[in-house]
Each structure stands twice: as C-alpha cells, then as structure tokens.
C-alpha cells in the first residue's frame, strides 16, 4: 500500500512538473522568447519556485508598483 502511494505521488509530481514546464515554455515563447528553454527546463526540475520567479521577473510590471515620493 505504501509503495502504491509512493508511485502515485511520483506520477502526480511528474504530471505537475510536465504541465508547469510546458506552460512556462509556451508562455515564455510569447513574453521572453530568448529564455524560453531556461524556463522550460527549470520548470521540469522544481515546483513552484520557477513559477514564482517567472511571475516576479517576467510577468510582474514593477514600473506600476513604484509610488511617487
């Protein structure tokens, strides 16, 4: 039973990583095509740090959040 749970967790982790990687790759192709392979490969290794960094670095518009003194 314990082994089955481990297998299910591993398969789920693989699916999540594949989905994350594909999404990052496709989205990066539109927003930052130069580094799409970086995001795709990094998205294959870890979760959820690549998504978080992608949102912070590529998608978030920091110029809007700056407040005037």
């Amino acid at each position, binding site marked *: 039973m314990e082994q089955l749970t481990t297998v299910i967790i*591993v398969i789920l982790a*693989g699916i999540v*990583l*594949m989905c994350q*990687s*594909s999404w990052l*790759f*496709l989205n990066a*192709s539109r927003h930052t095509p130069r*580094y*799409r*392979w*970086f995001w*795709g*490969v*990094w998205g*294959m*290794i*870890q979760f959820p*740090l*690549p998504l978080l*960094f992608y949102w912070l*670095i590529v998608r978030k518009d920091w110029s809007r959040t700056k407040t005037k003194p």
Partner: protein
Amino acid sequence: MKSRKTQQTDQASTGKPQSPRNSPDDSFDDDKAFQELLGDHLMKWDASIKPPTPVLSTLEQLVSEQKQLLSRRLWRDLLMLWVVGGLVLSGMLLLFQHNMIVFVVVQTGSIIAAAIFLILTQRSKFKEGQYKWNN
C-alpha cells in the same frame, strides 16, 4: 535648385545678402522656367506610374503560411522539451531512489544556478537599457 523660401531662410541665417545671380527673383524665374519646360511632362510621368497593389488573397496566404510555420516550429520545440523533460525527470527519479543526498544537492544547485543566471541576465538587460537610454 533652392526654392525661394529656403533662399530667404539662408539669407536670414547668414545675415549676408546673397549674390545677385542667386537672388530670390532669379530663383523664382528659374523655378518658373523649369515648370514651363518640364512641369507638364513630369506631371504626366508621375500620373503614368501606378504602384503595383498586392492582391488580398496573396497577403492572406502569406500570413497563413507564416502562422503555420510558427505553430509547426513551436510544436517541434515543445516535443523536444518533452523529450528532454522525460530524461530529466527519469534522472531525478533515479537519484531520488538511490541517493537522497545527491538529489538534494542537485536541487539546491539548480536553484543557485538559476538564481545566478537570472541575476546575470537582469544585470545585462539593465546595462543594455542604460546604454540605449544614454546613446
């Protein structure tokens, strides 16, 4: 051949009167003579030139071909990513099963490497922006 207006501005900017040969009146006469001599022919020649207008269907075909090419390229890259991903995931799984310490080291190393890469690319982007802004 300078027009009358440019001649006047030239004179105004230099502060000196132009030579009698290039006086505004002479220039105006030259313009008039030029118009009389070649004006009609030039107008006819200009009217006879008809730029070729592209057919709409050709443009649509071009756009659809480019779109097909882009989507084909994207699918090819995505398939390559899945192949690479399969290799990476199976390698990670093997590491996870056989040597937990190496797995943790690889994970930590990938975070550090990614952070360094991001810092370097952001810095180069910032420098590029500064260069473009200053030059």
